[in-house]
């Protein structure tokens, strides 16, 4: 293990130890924060008892559906925009300022439209994820070397074939980056929706525990969320490293 990894583990361990100490000795009141070890215990308890299983599934499923939709729609829209530079230029301001707008304000509108079920949060998740997908894919499409497109024409590929077999694989890394960001944004959207108004999901449970002053439950769920996000990210980064190595990029 190299110096860097050791230093990082040291930092993380130090923070955990300090927090544990501060909480146990009452420096930080249990009203605000419970010791990290307690969080772990609480989380394991809840997982074991199965009370969270439905909620985990609800949140993860909502995120998954919104990401899947955002990826498909995002790539398609990016391909269309890329082939129509005038339209792209016109829409560019929207893409760029999109994330400064509080998208979740449309949530009540969606509840009225679709009812108080899972659809509104999936739509919000989708809306947050799709634009970063479009932006990343556009970026990737811009970077496809012209010589590869010319090769497609020399080999008599149809337009669809060129996009499928040459352009998209070439842009794969940027598209992948877009997927990573899309997942992060969809998570925020779904959680925010569950916070504001929902019938279930991990965000809802956190809000519920918060209002009940049930810190153990609240922090336990937060830890679980952190772990889910970390695992997904680690997996994606590992996959990305594999692709980059094959292409000789790092």
């Amino acid at each position, binding site marked *: 293990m190299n*110096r*860097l990894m050791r*230093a*990082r583990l040291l*930092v*993380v361990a130090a923070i955990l130890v300090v927090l544990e100490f501060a909480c146990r000795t009452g420096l930080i009141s249990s*009203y*605000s*924060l419970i010791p990290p070890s307690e969080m772990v215990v609480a989380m394991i308890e809840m997982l074991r008892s199965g009370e969270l299983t439905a909620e985990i599934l609800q949140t993860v499923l909502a995120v998954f559906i919104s990401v899947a939709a955002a990826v498909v729609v995002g790539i398609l829209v990016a391909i269309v925009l890329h082939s129509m530079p005038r339209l792209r*230029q*016109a*829409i560019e*301001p*929207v893409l*760029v*300022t999109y*994330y*400064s*707008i*509080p998208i*979740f*304000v*449309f949530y*009540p*509108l969606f509840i*009225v*439209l679709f009812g108080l079920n899972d659809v509104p949060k999936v739509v919000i998740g989708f809306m947050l994820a799709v634009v970063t997908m479009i932006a990343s894919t556009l970026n990737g499409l811009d970077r496809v070397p012209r010589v590869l497109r010319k090769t497609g024409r020399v080999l008599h590929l149809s337009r669809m074939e060129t996009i499928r077999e040459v352009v998209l694989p070439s842009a794969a890394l940027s598209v992948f980056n877009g997927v*990573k*960001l899309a997942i*992060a944004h969809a*998570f*925020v959207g779904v*959680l*925010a929706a569950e*916070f*504001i*108004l929902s019938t279930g999901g991990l*965000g809802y449970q*956190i*809000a519920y*525990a*918060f209002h009940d002053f049930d*810190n153990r439950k*609240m*922090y336990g769920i*937060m830890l679980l*969320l*952190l772990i889910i*996000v*970390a695992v997904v*990210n680690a997996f994606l980064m590992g996959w990305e490293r594999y692709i980059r190595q094959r292409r000789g990029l790092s």
Partner: protein
Amino acid sequence: MNMLNILKSPKCRSTFDLLLLGVAFVALWQIFYEIAGSVALASPLAATENALKMLATSDFWMNAAATLKAFCIAVVIEAVAGLAIGIFLGLQRFTGDVFEPMLTGLYSVPKLMFFPMITLFFGIGLASEVAFGVLQGIISIILFTMSAVRNIKPVYMKTGKTMNLSTTQMMLTIALPGALPEIFTGLRIGVSSSLIGVILCEMFGSSRGLGFILMNAMQNNIVLDISSQTLLLIVFAAGLSGVLMAADYKLHRRV
């Protein structure tokens, strides 16, 4: 011929495009309104009228001031702290490398879930809103600043050392100016995120602020108010973002 050329110029085109976008936005809104009905949202016309009415009330401006106050304090704190930390981590190679993955990891975690924790620490009110705003924005600022400082050509830094500058002097007179465009991009993103953070925080636990009145309208399902307030929020957020983007663009063109 001359007139035609002016109309074709890029500047005129982009203004025209923006107008077109505005029209498209309103048109879509109207269509949505026709489909969904006034139980879901107000028509563009009604919402604009109501919005103008709201802008005339002192009640609205009291809330707006509360939000702006929290927002500005958050921006000052995260700008100063973010820049300082970012420059430090950028200059100190090893420490920067140690912390970078943790920061990027934190960036992709939905920071919303820390909201309860922050409220428990800071109580409901201004302090939480500022803290949450800072949390949302500071990581972008740190990451971009760090990257900007690292991308400064080493030869500039060597020049600074040969001039016997202290670390502080190097930071202020060499690192900061050269890295400014990228730093500004980080600031822009951070500031926009902070605004959303402050409003979100107000929505869940506050007694005043733009987020509070929005949440109020949402819970009482006053469709007209929700539509007007959303419109005002979008206009303000997009306007702010637009101004920042223009500045960002100008800075980058210099380089």
